[in-house]
């Protein structure tokens, strides 16, 4: 894996915030809420609405990204929400909203996984009750080698790109996507490697949270 840098509590205005980077990919996340949800018809009577907004800064890539939502970012918003919601105790806050804003300020592959890691830390930092932290990393296969945490150049060379999000305590996967061309057996190997990566990230996430809150 590329070197990981984590900082918790970087945005004083937010209820919780964190920065997470894999090498040259950096995501920052801020959490606001639980807070009242408007318009009212969007409220859910027995749980909070978790809203995730993923954005890439225009200067984050080689070619400028056009600001505003694209099909890609909207899909990432959806999978990020589904990756986080299984561990967030949304039922504690009926009718409220928990807003998670994820900004990618520098991108070199693995932005959705970095974003999920940052978001999970920001949720914890905001003191929102959670069953576990979510860790996320992508894996793939280049030639005969299985590789963890693909960077920009590797992503072009790999047979497949398989990001997962994982809950270490429940031993369950909350997000999995894949594109490429790989046999079932190789895919299973890749998933196992990605889980190992998540276990390492979990340790670092805990450490970062302890540094901020246990002093």
């Amino acid at each position, binding site marked *: 894996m590329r070197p990981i840098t984590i900082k918790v509590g970087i945005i004083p205005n937010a209820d919780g915030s964190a920065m997470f980077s894999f090498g040259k990919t950096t995501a920052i996340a801020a959490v606001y809420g639980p807070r009242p949800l408007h318009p009212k018809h969007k409220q859910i009577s027995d749980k909070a609405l978790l809203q995730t907004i993923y954005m890439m800064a225009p200067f984050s890539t080689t070619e400028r990204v056009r600001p505003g939502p694209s099909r890609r970012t909207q*899909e990432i918003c959806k999978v990020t929400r*589904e990756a986080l919601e299984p561990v967030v105790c949304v039922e504690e806050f009926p009718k409220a909203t928990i807003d998670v804003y994820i900004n990618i300020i520098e991108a070199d592959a693995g932005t959705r996984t970095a974003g999920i890691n940052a978001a999970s830390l920001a949720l914890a930092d905001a003191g929102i009750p959670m069953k576990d932290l979510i860790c996320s990393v992508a894996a793939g296969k280049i030639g005969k080698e299985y590789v963890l945490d693909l960077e920009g150049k590797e992503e072009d060379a790999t047979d497949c790109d398989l990001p997962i999000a994982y809950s270490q305590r429940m031993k369950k996967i*909350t997000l*999995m996507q894949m594109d490429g061309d790989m046999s079932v057996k190789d*895919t299973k190997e890749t998933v196992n490697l990605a889980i190992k990566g998540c276990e390492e990230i979990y340790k670092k996430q805990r450490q970062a949270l302890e540094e901020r809150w246990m002093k």
Partner: protein
Amino acid sequence: MNNVQKQYLLNTISAAKRGDGRGLEDFRKMEIETGVIYKAEGSARVRFGKTEVIAGVKMDVGTPFPDTPDDGVMMVNSEFSPMASPKFETGPPREPSIELSRVVDRGIRESKTIDTKKLCIKKGEKVWMVFVDIYIINHDGNLIDAAALATVAALHSAKMPEYDAKTEKPNFDKKTKKLPLSCKPITVTVHKIGENFIIDPTLEEESITEARFTVATNDKGNLCAIQKGGVTSLTTDEIYKAFDLSVKKGKDLRKLIKG
């Protein structure tokens, strides 16, 4: 759906039965018709029970992307028309529609079904562009699988217009060659309800699904695209089970596509 109906459905499925008499791993009655739209280069209508989807292929000549100067362009778009379900509204595409198009797109793109190099007319300047548009006619669950199947069937039935070098435009009156296709990627979605896995859910079943797992497989049985959905987590064993089921069912569906 109210709680009584929900509980009834859950009970039926945990007893390994379905409301319509199918087994857990059975598709509904399936129909695939190709060439349903005369004006389109290729088209297909797919029905899974009451779910109905039309996919149309249109082609045009355009400029390639700067990073792939000798590759043709393929785009998949879907339209959840308000006539198909009381839940669909007009306006720009929302998350479910975007997710569907992108999952279908990945299945086709990553399996390298279309040989995009053969769609190049003049490097860096002119290439063929393939547009796949998916229309939902009636929504009764399992839209992703139906849309993906319709897309593959439409691509395989498509005839390319000839390129007119004088006008630098496609000649839609002369459609002769088939598209340069290499395989038939099949997308199968597995749903987890209680402790059971089912495929091809109806809308009712889909409303109580906890997690869904979509896998696209190519002719070799390799996996080309995966997408997990839903707010429940899955263990690795459950995921591996979904892989195997998708590969198995993919083989059956592939036989239904001509071309």
